[in-house]
């Protein structure tokens, strides 16, 4: 029931909005209906400036520079370059096989790139182990979350917080008090977040018994416990029923308003277009174009890529 996190995080959002030329009453991000703001076509000053332009003062939380990866003869990622600014929801779309998941795996360290760099929060994390990249604040979810056997939902949530004292074997015996303290605090946090997500009734259910859609919500909630600088969501609503998808969308929007930065891959166009701004379109492993939902929607190259025209 507590609203603590809103006060601290909302300020970043606001200051960013004032950076734009005038105090536009309807910044696209966080708006209930971004379609209306962007409906007036491109020249409308939005909270999120055009990506690709070299912006010194904007706070770039994730920078992907000239990233390359091939598997044998197949080039999966071909000189991909883009930036993600703090406080945005960046949508990553593209036809099947465009290299979206490969790109996620490269960014989060699950694949090692053949070339190029990934920078998180100003630190070059290229070639680091996934857990090290996570320690720098880049947290990701997976397309198909595997359920944690033998755990309850709140127990599964407790894996989220980073660097818990109780994760050191020696500390368990040298200072059990510290462990108990942090465990209590984390449990309270977990329950608060479950409440905010309106899934607190699941807390003591076995994690294997909840539905796939609920699992996606739990995953998102757990990722928040890791306090991400930037959160990569891999198809958050794939296979999720429409009701839960809506719920996920409103949660992502709520967290975004509180200042969380998202990058998401999603095949559900309506979902992405409604939520994300800017949108990056990938095709054959490289960035085809990027821009506002409407800009992207009306781009002929994007249509070609999706329809398999001879682009």
């Amino acid at each position, binding site marked *: 029931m507590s609203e603590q996190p809103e006060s601290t995080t909302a300020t970043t959002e606001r200051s960013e909005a004032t950076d734009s030329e005038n105090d536009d009453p309807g910044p696209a991000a966080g708006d209930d209906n971004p379609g209306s703001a962007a409906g007036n076509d491109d020249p409308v000053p939005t909270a999120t400036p055009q990506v690709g332009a070299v912006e010194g003062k904007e706070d770039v939380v994730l920078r992907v520079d000239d990233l390359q990866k091939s598997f044998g003869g197949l080039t999966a990622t071909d000189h991909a370059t883009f930036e993600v600014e703090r406080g945005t929801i960046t949508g990553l779309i593209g036809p099947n096989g465009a290299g979206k998941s490969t790109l996620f795996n490269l960014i989060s360290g699950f694949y090692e790139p053949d070339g190029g760099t990934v920078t998180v929060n100003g630190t070059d994390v290229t070639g680091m182990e996934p857990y090290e990249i996570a320690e720098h604040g880049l947290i990701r979810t997976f397309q198909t979350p595997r359920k944690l056997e033998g755990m309850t939902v709140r127990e599964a949530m407790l894996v989220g917080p980073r660097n818990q004292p*109780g994760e050191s074997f020696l500390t368990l015996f040298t200072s059990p008090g510290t462990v108990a303290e942090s465990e209590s605090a984390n449990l309270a946090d977990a329950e608060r977040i479950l409440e905010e997500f309106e899934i607190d009734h699941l807390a003591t259910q076995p994690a294997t018994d909840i539905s796939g859609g609920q699992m996606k919500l739990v995953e998102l909630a757990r990722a928040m416990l890791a306090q991400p600088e930037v959160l990569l969501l891999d198809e958050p609503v794939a296979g999720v029923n429409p009701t839960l998808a809506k719920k996920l969308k409103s949660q992502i929007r709520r967290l975004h308003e509180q200042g969380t930065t998202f990058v998401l891959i999603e095949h559900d166009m309506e979902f992405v277009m409604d939520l994300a701004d800017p949108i990056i379109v990938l095709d054959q492993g490289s960035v085809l174009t990027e821009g506002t939902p409407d800009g992207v929607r009306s781009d002929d190259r994007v249509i070609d890529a999706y329809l398999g025209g001879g682009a």
Partner: protein
Amino acid sequence: MTTTETAVSVVVGFVVLALFLALVTGALGASYFLFLFGLAGMYALLSLGLNSQWGFGGLINFSVAAFFGIGAYGAALMTAGNSPIAGGFNPIFGLIVGLVVAALVAVAIGIPTLRLRADYLAIATLGLAEVIRLFLRNERQWTNGSAGIRGIPSFFEGWPVLGTLPQTMPSLEVVIVPGSPILLGTQFWRQLLNVSLLLAFLGATFFVLRRAQQSPWGRVLRTIRSDEDLAKALGKNTFAFKMQTFVLGSMIMALAGVFYAHLNLFVNPGDLDPITTFYVWVAVILGGSGSNRGALLGGFVVVAIREGSRFVNDFAWFPIDGAPLRLLLIGLLIVLVMRYRPQGVLPPQRELIWPSAIEGSGTPERPTSGVREQKGSDEAGRNGGDNDE
């Protein structure tokens, strides 16, 4: 859960009662009884070790016997009178050597394999088990080869009071059932000391593992067991966690080996036969992977079958010899458990959170029934609609 626990307690109660009856009627010697108990505890210790690898972290270790052997030979080579290396040390020193060597071997085998999928550790440990066994058999100048090492002192030899306790204790004759007195001689006191040593080892191990299991440390391992990538994505150094539990489990197995050396007073390469590994796996799966209590139970059940089947040879009318019957029973048991109770007899608790943390939290500890879930998902639907329309 509770019905299973009751059933298990009843069965264990019956077995204890039967053993007690056998004891008082003289069918079972008191010191042999304690020896059996020591053996069962040793298997329980091995099961706990494997449980901390397979049950906690999903690590497939097929060299249980090898780590057991490292412990046993470490203790034997350091303490025995005819040790080809450096006998005559204090058993405590042997204990430390056994554990340290086991830890080093675990690290050495873990470095190349624990970054890979679970299968690779399985293959590597399969090989390691044979390497260690053949090393002990063939490197005669260090290990006495297949002759084994004799003259291992009891663990308490040289200790102030305990060292000479068995000799100084009087021989007693206890008569409970008239006509069949129970002899409590030097052998008995010696075994009693062994059993108390075992209980100390077992108690310490159980305490450590229980705490580890309920901790965030154990939780990360359970996450790794289900989905290692997820653990990595949440910032957990999965390699380090797996290495820690692998080393921990291997040291517990070596501890069982150290105890065995001082219980049996003789070790040979035959003690490292792969069948030991197999028995321990059976014990862990039977008891319930991930469950410390289950590992204890499994260890005792395996020894009950192993040793109990010896007695069928006393009955001339029984058509099957003890040794094959043993394997038959174990096989049958595994099939039955897999078919009817794949999670094991005493599976781990559903929720493992640092105990004092739960007391402070507001939600009820008991997992709720499905009724509430139904209501919850309706509610979820309503709220989702409210927010978006």
